[in-house]
């Protein structure tokens, strides 16, 4: 009653629409990018404008190891997804666990650096403009990474209980988009904080 | 100040200084073009509404289903684009003329510092600090002596706006802005803070006193004198110096050198109190000291809660600061 069909025959082509999850995640990533852009702009704007020390070059140490860990986690996640697509669940779970560990190592690295900065160098979020912008930007990234880790963990638990199979490739793919995004953001943050900012 | 033409309006269509006049010229041009657009487009609207209204005599059939026309679309894209180009060029010329004017050597420098809720004016080359009433010399066309203002703020954002003399410029902490004025006619020009700055934004009034060069010179030398020391009001001076007045206010030659409030060294040379909120009369001054909220509720001047005798004494003392 409430619907009708136009008298014209529908076109022979099948009606294909994009995947909801992917589109929504892409939209979320666009929105998140805008948030990060604002924080990056604030960081760049305030470089060298602190009225008191410490300055970045006095206290920052380039986190090479954790950066390598985080970037390689994107690779392991990608390969894990490929395995799931082909139905190799144990290989998928192994690489997924590795991704989780690599991400965890990175987060731990950030924690260590903050501990060192706060307790040894006396730099807190209220020390100067550098402290404010540094902890906010790196902290915002760490917050997103933590959210990503929790989601990885959820998939891991589902996987260990045997609930993740080929049918979930799409959903796992959506989560991977988020993780790759968090990695890409780190490339920007790393460049801004450790290369440009010094 | 008597004898001058007192401009009682703040009308932007009555420009009295080059920046205001240049803007006024641009305004007329922009108004003309927009008025023309208005007449044409509103005319089209009215015509189509009247002409194409449904009539009882209409046949039951729907009208012709026209979906669009490339030529017409093109026309009403290109024509507005051309109008925008013209408006932009006219605007850019004026922006350049006002913002990029070089400062002549004869220009007077004034530093304007915005405070909640009053104006501080410093004349760095003349060694004068005053408040709320900006004195500047009239600028002769032949020998221009414009006034160049450097504007900043001690607390929140403010905006310097004297409509008849020029557009507004914001006073922002941690930042120095610049603007200039060159009114040829002596007179008093009114304005007020145009950027919301807190509770008493409304009574952060402003007046610019434009004087003939000779009068301005006299005002400058009077302001450069140290504050008058009158033995007859020493009781009041003692009240002033032993109360918190001196934390915020300055009077040269006394212990008072606070910077939160206006310099009082030549208080009586000003026509108004509390940034234009009240006329500078002894009774208003007394009221302002005792209960500022009666004149300007929410101002940062605290109620002094003095005894009647102390209040009379300190008022008498301040009355001597010419």
């Amino acid at each position: 009653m409430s619907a009708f069909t136009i008298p014209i025959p529908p076109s022979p082509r099948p009606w294909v629409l994009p995947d909801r999850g992917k589109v929504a995640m892409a939209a979320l990533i666009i929105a998140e990018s805008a948030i990060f852009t604002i924080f990056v702009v604030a960081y760049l704007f305030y470089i060298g404008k602190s009225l008191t020390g410490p300055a970045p070059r006095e206290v920052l140490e380039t986190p090479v190891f954790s950066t390598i860990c985080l970037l390689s986690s994107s690779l392991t996640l990608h390969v894990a997804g490929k395995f799931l697509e082909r139905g190799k669940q144990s290989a998928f779970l192994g690489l997924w666990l590795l991704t989780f560990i690599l991400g965890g190592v990175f987060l731990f690295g950030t924690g260590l650096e903050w501990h060192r900065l706060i307790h040894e160098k006396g730099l807190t979020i209220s020390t100067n403009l550098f402290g404010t912008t540094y902890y906010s930007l790196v902290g915002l990234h760490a917050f997103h990474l933590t959210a990503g880790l929790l989601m990885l963990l959820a998939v891991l638990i589902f996987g260990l209980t045997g609930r993740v199979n080929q049918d979930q490739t799409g959903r796992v793919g959506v989560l991977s988009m988020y993780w790759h995004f968090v990695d890409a953001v780190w490339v920007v943050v790393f460049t801004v904080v450790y290369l440009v900012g010094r | 100040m008597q004898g001058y033409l007192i401009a009682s309006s703040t009308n932007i269509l009555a420009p009295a200084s080059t920046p205001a006049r240049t803007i006024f010229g641009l305004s007329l041009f922009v108004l003309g073009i927009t008025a023309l657009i208005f007449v044409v487009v509103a005319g089209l609207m009215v015509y189509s509404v009247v002409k194409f209204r449904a009539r009882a005599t209409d046949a039951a059939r729907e009208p012709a289903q026209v979906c669009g026309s490339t030529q017409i679309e093109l026309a009403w894209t290109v024509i507005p684009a051309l109008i925008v180009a013209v408006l932009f060029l006219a605007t850019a010329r004026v922006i350049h003329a006002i913002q990029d004017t070089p400062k002549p050597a004869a220009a007077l420098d004034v530093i304007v510092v915005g405070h909640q809720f009053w104006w501080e004016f410093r004349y760095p080359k003349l060694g004068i600090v005053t408040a709320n009433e900006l004195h500047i010399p009239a600028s002769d066309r032949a020998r221009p002596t414009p006034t160049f203002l450097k504007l900043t703020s001690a607390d929140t954002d403010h905006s310097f706006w004297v409509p008849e003399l020029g557009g507004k410029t914001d006073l922002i902490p941690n930042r120095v802005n610049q603007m200039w004025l060159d009114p040829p006619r002596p007179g008093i020009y009114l304005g007020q803070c145009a950027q919301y700055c807190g509770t008493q934004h409304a009574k952060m009034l402003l007046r610019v006193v434009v004087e003939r060069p000779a009068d301005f010179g006299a005002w400058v030398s009077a302001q450069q004198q140290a504050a008058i020391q009158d033995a007859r009001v020493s009781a009041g001076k003692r009240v002033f110096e032993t109360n918190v007045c001196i934390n915020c206010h300055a009077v040269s030659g006394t212990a008072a050198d606070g910077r939160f409030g206006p310099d009082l060294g030549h208080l009586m040379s000003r026509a108004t109190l509390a940034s234009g909120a009240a006329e500078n009369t002894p009774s208003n001054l007394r009221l302002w000291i005792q209960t500022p909220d009666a004149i300007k509720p929410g101002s940062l001047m605290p109620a002094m809660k003095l005894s009647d005798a102390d209040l009379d004494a300190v008022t008498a003392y301040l009355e001597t600061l010419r």
Partner: protein
Amino acid sequence: MSTNASAIENIQGIGRPWMEVLHEWVTTVDHKGLGLLYILYALSYLVIGGFEALIIRAQLMHAHNHLVSPQVFNRMFTMHGTTMIFFVAMPMLFGFANYLVPLMIGARDMAFPRLNAFSFWLTALGGGLLYFSFLGGNGLYGAGTAPDVGWWAYAPLPAKAFSPGHSSDYWTIALLVSGLGSVGTAINILTTVLCMRCPGMHLGRMPLLVWLNLVMSGMVLIAVTPLTAAQVMLLVDRYLGGHFFDTQAGGSATLWMHFFWIFGHPEVYILILPAFAFVSEIVPVYSRKPIFGYPVMVGATVFIGFVSMSVWAHHMFTVGMNSYANSFFTITSMVVGIPTGIKIFNWIGTMWGGRIRFKTPMLFCLGFLFQFLVAGLTGIMLASSPFDWQLGNSYFVVAHFHYVIVGGLLFAIFAAFYYWYPKFTGRMLSEQLGKVHFWLFLIGFHATFDVMHIPGILGMPRRIYTYEPGRGWDTLNLIVTIGAVIQAAAILVFVCNLAVSYWKGANAGKDPWDAWTLEWSATSPPPAYNFATIPVVASRRPLWDLKHPEDPDSRYE
């Protein structure tokens, strides 16, 4: 008709325990239920925000008025602005988008119904937090204060030093929370439009309302998030001792202005695009012609979306940017006028050669067209930066943006109410009351906002709780205040109309306006699943094709 009547009874919850009805409303994830919740929520805040406006106008009625204290006045304009933008305009438009977009694209719900509910309740929480500040701003013992920093809260005014207590925190968190809700809804609308269209509804066949809401959602993603980021920074400053906007520690006040207006200006287009959307649906139906220049309308919308991202600093012409920056933002701001002008011409083109029926929705659309034209032209004046040095932050600007938001947006929203109310409730709104509402509101609007331009030209700055006599502002302000009262009376008529027609209105049937988009093929109100079978479309006006099988649009597109 009997199915229709029972559908009406169903939505009115007749004969069921009220707790059950309430529970259903609170837990609903149906796009129509949430759409109506958004709309009702926005309507109640419209009344509250309007009441605040009346307090402002009563205070400004004459010079040196002592009706309210400066503190109260400052809170009133802060709350009025914040409420109207974030808790009236945004939820109202999201409400209509929620209700209409799935119906218009032949879908059964939004892409993510539970995210939809979550977003609504976040927005609702935001409004609650903002108004809780009246109690909690200073703590209960301090009698409480609402925020008084202005709706754009220029730094350093909301810093701890100038805004002690918690009133600014409530403002910040309210905007943060409702901003997250907006982003959620935007993601949802965008995904719905891209992924849920019925067969045959490719992008070039979507109704313009859907297109405009798609662009609007894209803009929300990019424009609302900077505000969210800036609010987070403000919270870091206020709670963790950060220095982002702390001018004593080298922080920059202008950075806040940039961040705010990077949100603030696109926001204006986020609000006005849905207004365009309503007008683009309603004008064709009452002119009995398809929209003129559909592809151009879509192109102009997308162009507005992009250009409006690069005009923000025209709100900052007086902060001392150099002449090149001022010139840049002048040209970009003027360029936005071109696609906007194209839209106005296309609406006129739609009416041209039509047979215009002057029902209430069309009257409001005509009001919109006229007022939006004026608002656009005063906008051109303000875009000319030297002119803005005089007019900026004066009552001229206040008149200008109320012309956009009230004369444009609110008129379009009223049009949308009269047009879609039959679909929402199954009952017609009263035409008589509608016409009274229209004329009363039109008179009040022009009395208020035409006159309000003049004190601006005479040098009256905005946000002052009182003013000096003798500057020629008194009489003008009195007229403005009288106009505001007339508008309030008109709103009262409107609310009465909504209430009375809900119970007594004529039965609407499926398609009272003889319209052409898919929502009119469902019953009024539509069933929970919208369409028993998913429709298939072959043109932009599927119901036209159905009604005119001898001359369908699909033959030409």
